[in-house]
């Protein structure tokens, strides 16, 4: 049996009420009021599609032996690199083996499901197993555009394998159309779109029914066979008319999360799929449809194993972990849409030394330290000579991954002098629960969330962005564990 073994989700902590955006930019296009309902999820200043995909993938892979994961597919239209495989960054953050299959999927908003089909095909063919497909997007609309209001940031991941399947894969059907409703050229930062009425009626209104009919015909099924029907569509009115046209009943509908996350691009259908799995029961058939430059449709049937999967944050857990971003200018700053003054200190050069990074990639991407085989002392970064004053042996250590175990705050501060686009810089010493310590930046918090001894998770984040060389550098940061979480 081939299908989904596990799922994971990620929605960034910060939520921007759309009226905050409209309050600043509504003057330029009052009709945007129609889109100014609810809130959108916003990646923190140190998050992007790679870090969100890594977070969703970690949630998905939680509790699984990393050595058994056979691949990572990363799907996004907002990858931080054109050349440099982001899937390797996600795989690195998962501290996986390196003799695995890694690939990036992009180009269309349907790339998340295309990656998923590729993984399913691959596992079916027996060429790889336990592939984590993680989709993330962090798309930008220009200031005052409808897209700025509609889009939201998020990520979702599914693990595809052939044992302990929670949702069996039953088949897929795909279309490809050069229907350019949205596009970004190779140099573009912002989404462009054609007239909304055309997108609504000729795009969503035709391609969703087309692909649904296609898959139902192919497998001899009717829409009433499905417990849930998932498809992305950020037009509320179009969704209603498509549901009516196809006969999708209210209990088959999966919420698009438009009011709490926004359209998460390549991650959108995957996020809805994770949400559906969170609420699914054995025997449920789920129809998963994506949209963008054509459509993919996939059929799954939930199995008894769904109850055996240990709880994870998924979508619901992340939705509860939230904080208001009540400042539109801060949003613009985080997304580098405006230039702010971080002082001359902020103009100092950051050098990314690739040879160093490769040499230390297990340290930097996987948060891998060393554990002394003689005395058991854990050390980060890895040390050749054991730091334990009563041990001190040389070259007798083994690697140990520290990212999953979390840690506790040993000391902390909140620094107004350090240059940052999100001051104050909050950082301090963290003792890993598995042993050893390091000085980390803290993120997704204020200094009031910290106390000596309080628990933290480790989160893969953007360490810095070098605008001169267009380098996004990644490392781990500490995130205080919210009260009541997990």
């Amino acid at each position, binding site marked *: 049996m081939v299908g989904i073994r596990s799922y994971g989700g990620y929605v960034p902590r910060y939520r921007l009420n759309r009226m905050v955006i409209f309050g600043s930019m509504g003057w330029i296009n009052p009709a945007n009021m129609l889109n100014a309902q609810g809130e959108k999820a916003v990646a923190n200043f140190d998050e992007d599609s790679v870090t969100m995909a890594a977070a969703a993938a970690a949630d998905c892979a939680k509790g699984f032996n990393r050595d058994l994961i056979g691949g990572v597919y990363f799907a996004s239209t907002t990858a931080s690199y054109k050349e440099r495989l982001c899937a390797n960054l996600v795989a690195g953050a998962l501290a996986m083996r390196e003799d695995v299959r890694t690939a990036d999927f992009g180009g269309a908003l349907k790339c998340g499901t295309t990656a998923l089909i590729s993984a399913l095909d691959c596992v079916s063919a027996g060429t790889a197993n336990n592939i984590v497909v993680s989709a993330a997007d962090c798309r930008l609309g220009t200031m005052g555009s409808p897209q700025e209001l509609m889009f939201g940031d998020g990520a979702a991941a599914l693990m595809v394998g052939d044992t302990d399947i929670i949702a069996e894969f039953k088949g897929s059907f795909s279309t490809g159309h050069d229907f350019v409703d949205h596009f970004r050229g190779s140099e573009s930062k912002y989404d462009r779109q054609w007239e909304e009425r055309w997108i609504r009626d000729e795009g969503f209104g035709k391609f969703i029914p087309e692909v649904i009919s296609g898959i139902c015909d192919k497998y001899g099924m009717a829409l009433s066979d499905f417990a849930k029907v998932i498809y992305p569509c950020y037009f509320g009115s179009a969704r209603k008319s498509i549901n009516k046209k196809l006969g999708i009943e209210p209990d088959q509908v999966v919420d698009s999360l438009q009011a709490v996350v926004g359209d998460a691009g390549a991650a959108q259908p995957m996020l809805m799929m994770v949400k559906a799995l969170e609420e699914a029961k054995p025997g449920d058939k789920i129809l998963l449809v994506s949209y963008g430059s054509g459509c993919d449709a996939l059929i799954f049937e939930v199995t008894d194993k769904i109850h055996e999967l240990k709880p994870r944050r998924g979508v619901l857990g992340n939705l509860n972990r939230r904080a208001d971003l009540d400042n539109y200018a801060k949003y613009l700053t985080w997304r580098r849409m405006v230039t702010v003054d971080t*002082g*001359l*200190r902020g103009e*100092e050069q*950051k*050098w*990314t*030394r690739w040879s*160093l*990074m490769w040499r*230390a990639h297990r*340290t*930097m991407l996987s948060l891998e330290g060393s554990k002394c085989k003689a005395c058991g*002392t854990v*050390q*980060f*970064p890895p*040390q050749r000579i054991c*730091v*334990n*004053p009563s041990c001190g042996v040389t070259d007798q250590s083994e690697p140990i991954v520290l990212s999953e175990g979390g840690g506790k705050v*040993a*000391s*902390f*501060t*909140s*620094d*107004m*002098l*350090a*240059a*940052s686009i999100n001051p*104050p*810089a909050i*950082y*301090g*010493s963290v*003792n890993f629960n598995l*042993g*050893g*310590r390091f*000085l*980390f*930046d803290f993120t997704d918090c204020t*200094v009031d969330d910290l106390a*000596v*001894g309080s628990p933290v998770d480790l989160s893969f984040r953007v*360490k*810095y962005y070098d605008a001169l060389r267009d380098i996004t*550098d990644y*490392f781990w940061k500490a995130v205080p564990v919210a009260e009541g979480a997990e």
Partner: protein
Amino acid sequence: MAEGIRDKVVILGMGCTKFGERWSDAPEDLAVDAFTECLSDAGIEKKEIEAAWLGSHFDEINVGKGGNFLGMALKLPLIPVTRTENFCASGTEAFRGACYGVASGAYDIALALGVEKLKDTGYGGLPDSPAFGQQYAMIGPNATAPGMFAQLATAYSAAYKVPMEKIKEAMAHISWKSHQNGANNPRAHLRKPIPVEQILGAPMIAYPLGLFDCCGVSDGSACAIVTTPKIAKKIKPNQDLVKVKAIQVSVSSGEEALYTDWDGSGMLTTRRASSKAYEEAGIKNPREEISMMEVHDCFSITELATMEDLHISEPGKACDDILDGFYDLNGKIPCQPDGGLKCFGHPIAASGLRMLFEMYNQLLGLWPEERQVKNPKFGLTHNLGGIPNQNVCSIAIVGL
């Protein structure tokens, strides 16, 4: 333990510039000023200097690498010049080099000079630099010196169960004291007394350190000429001689940064270096025997923790001693009689020699009455470079 260098080396002369924002002075100007005063005080000619050590820290904006700067600025006649760089201990390291040069018998007369030109940086605070190597630069936190030292306060509060309010009060007293002392010192960078209320109400720089918990960032130079007691006696037959009693350095072993036994509330290096220095100087009970100190108060919390690390205040009790006035100018052990880094200023590699300049003049009784320590016997200087998690500590003890 080796017998050390106690009483084998004498400070023959010293010089020190006014520290501050010396916008119109190049590092060469600062070095020449400190050297000229020092040479005149030593009562020798330049050609009698046989070797020199130059302390400088920031390569980026200061005097560059190597020893050439000093040879060329002072026109030293092709003698050896060695540059010492060991964070904030760079000046004391230059002094150690010169003292060891004399104590070993390699040279009769040696020069140590520290200089730092920080005010060409372009922004407040110290220059941002990859001080701990390239890997740390890429993965270490987005940190500054105040933020790294501020963590001493959160860790100290947790380790000794001392409420942050009391630590803030003691830190304010430390800064108040330095401002009182600095106001009396014409060479100091900051010369204005500041009331405790203003210190406590100052804007936050790095929690819990406010503006007045942070030392001045300054330009300056300080300099010493050292020789043997025998030669010094010949040159200055009718004067007390300031002898070097001990110089010790301790460098982090990784125990603080990597091993979780360290609780972050104080410096292991200072504890070791001070114990070794007392041993070298023959001091049994520092709380009773040390007459005065210049310690590395880069931040008020550093001075607070250092009082315990020097084995003078009991662990967890520094706040009480500080608030009791034990370290005030009229207290049992005046600490920072010249205003300290806080108010005299902190041009990194000049600071160690600046502290020795203060001890030297105090021991010789050369200061005006209002800031002269009464009958001092031993003066201690202390530098702490780097960050609490990985640092360098130097201690020097000088006496009559």
